[in-house]
């Protein structure tokens, strides 16, 4: 049981990283990035390839993943400077699908739909399965706390205020003399880098990645997490990610005690339970569990 909880806490933490990344761009500047799964995939593949076919240490993979994903984020955002809202969402969704299709077709590089298995984990062999789980969670939590600290600092800083100004009205921000494009590009690249880092952490934890892991479903999960946690609040993003994971997993145990239903009905009930729970959260707390709080700007 403990081992399972450690595993779920780790995957929850990875979802948490993704949520923090999404919140920065969606909650911060109001840009809808449906390509989250693509950046997640880029990070995962970059790190997996460097450490398997490239034989580099895991740390190198973890450093390279956010750089690759961040650079891709910069390219995407600079290609889409004129797009906003729905249009940006469509293009980013397309980007994620392109990443997935490249991963499934460039077999020489990515092993195609077979995926990459045997991705090394830190001290996996010496620790054994159970201790590896126990050791990975603290590593992940350190990264999570560091990223949380970073995005929270951004959120509270004058920089964060500019991002929010762009979210509310980009034109006004521009008129106030802020370089809107530069801010957007930086925030988007940083958000993509965080997603890439999450991807690297995921791959080295589960030891296997494949294009099927990066379907748009994961992006939808993270949007749900951020929406239920509270758009615009980093703490909310984290809470939302863990809430989502708790719902996904605890629903399993609830439906096991419903008598006289077949396995498939149980699976459907499970999905239903999760959906109802999320609807309830958003119905009762439309601004999320930890609503955004906008600190007053200090007087000059």
């Amino acid at each position, binding site marked *: 049981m403990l081992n*399972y909880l450690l595993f*779920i806490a780790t995957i929850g933490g990875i979802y948490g990283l993704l949520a923090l990344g999404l919140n920065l761009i969606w909650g911060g500047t109001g840009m809808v990035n449906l390509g989250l799964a693509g950046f997640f995939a880029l990070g995962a593949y970059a790190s997996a390839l460097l450490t398997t076919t490239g034989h580099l240490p895991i740390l190198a993979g973890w450093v390279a993943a956010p750089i690759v994903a961040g650079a891709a984020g910069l390219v995407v955002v600079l290609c889409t400077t004129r797009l906003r809202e729905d249009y940006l969402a469509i293009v980013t969704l397309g980007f994620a699908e392109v990443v997935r299709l490249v991963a499934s077709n460039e077999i020489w590089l990515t092993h195609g739909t077979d995926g990459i298995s045997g991705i090394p984990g830190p001290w996996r062999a010496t620790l054994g399965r159970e201790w590896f789980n126990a050791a990975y969670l603290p590593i992940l939590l350190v990264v999570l706390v560091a990223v949380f600290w970073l995005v929270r600092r951004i959120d509270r800083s004058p920089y964060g205020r500019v991002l929010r100004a762009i979210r509310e009205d980009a034109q006004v921000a521009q008129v106030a003399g802020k370089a809107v494009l530069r801010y957007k590009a930086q925030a988007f690249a940083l958000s993509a880098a965080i997603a890439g880092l999450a991807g690297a952490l995921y791959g080295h934890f589960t030891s296997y990645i494949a294009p099927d892991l990066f379907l748009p479903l994961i992006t939808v999960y993270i949007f749900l997490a951020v929406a239920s946690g509270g758009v615009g609040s980093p703490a909310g993003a984290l809470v939302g990610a863990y809430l989502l994971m708790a719902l996904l997993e605890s629903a399993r145990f609830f439906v096991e005690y419903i008598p006289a239903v*077949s396995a498939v009905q149980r699976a459907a009930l499970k999905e239903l339970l999760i959906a109802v729970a999320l609807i309830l959260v958003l119905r009762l*707390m439309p601004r999320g569990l930890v609503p955004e709080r906008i600190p007053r700007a200090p007087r000059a």
Partner: protein
Amino acid sequence: MNRLVGRRTALLSGVAAVAAPSVLRAQGEPIKIATLTPLTGAGGSYGPVMAKVAKAVVDEVNAAGGVLGRKIQLVSEDDQTNPDAGVRAARKLIDVDKVSAIVGTWASAVTTAVAPLCWESKTFLCTVSGADSITQLPHQGYLIRTQPNTVLQITRTGDFLVSLGAKKIFTLVPQAPFAQHSIEIMNGVARKAGGSHGGLIYDDKKTTYRTEVDQALRFGPDAILCAGYMPDTVVLLKDLYRAGYKGKIIGQAYAINQKLIQQIGQNEVVEGVYTYAPSVAEGSRALERVKKMSGLSDPDPYTSQVYDHVNMVLMAMAAAKDTTGTAIKDNIRKVSQGGGKAVDNAIDGIKAITAGEKVDYAGASGPCDFDDKGDILDCKFRYEQIKAGKPVLVKIA
């Protein structure tokens, strides 16, 4: 205030979720095994009946006294045809339920994702996935599969086409783990028979395949293998018909099925098209039982395979006098092959094993004999031809 109540309730229900199973689990000591089949998602039309048949086998064995005097408890989880969800479900099965075997993983990506968890935790895994790479994983023996791999499937199909007199074969296959390999194997088969071969890989989400068909016809084939799924094969067959192709066509029976004929809507498009499929053990008593358990008159190979998985796992436990995954790994081949009393279900098998006899299981999907890597050694294939919108059996070989 309102929010406080909300949080407290959320916290309580979370605690309850974690605490509930351990309280309820404290009674009895049944042997636990699990199905991990796709109950939702792309495999959702296969998984439910697979889980149902596994449950029926377990109920039957329990009614006959169980294994080693203990009852068997079956836990069924949903892999959602998605590797991420599959891994989470498998972790729950391994770490919380502590099952000794997982049977029925369907999609290759799910099996590849779940397999490392199984061999690391010494849990036995039986799968119906076909990708060749699966048995090449370093699984230390903790994995067997009853689905013939690509090599076996394509070689047999190629041999069948050659036996029909095909000289120039063209392979059209969607991008999937078996794509490149399928083309290479078919190439070998055609060359060996003194013919020639060409192939291309296409994207299975396209709405037209005119360019692909043009490219195939430029090769001048007298037989085309369409190794795709149902939706893309619909488009492909229509485009081949429009292009005036008159040669032979063969495809997987799971793609060229009744639904495909209905969707195409014109019998002349599919007239004469051949299909192939790993055959269930037609006429065997085991298959009759699967028919009864599943309530289907024509159960698919996956369902038959899961029936065999459960029976073999339970017999391996009886032979080992132990219920761990390692015990199953070390004994599964002792009950599945190597001669002895022929059995086709676990109840008879367990009786014979308890009486000290050696058994050799042959089930609903075939003889169920495995090589060292976990691949099945042999399997019968069923070839059919569509005539006036209905599949007609050509042969089982």
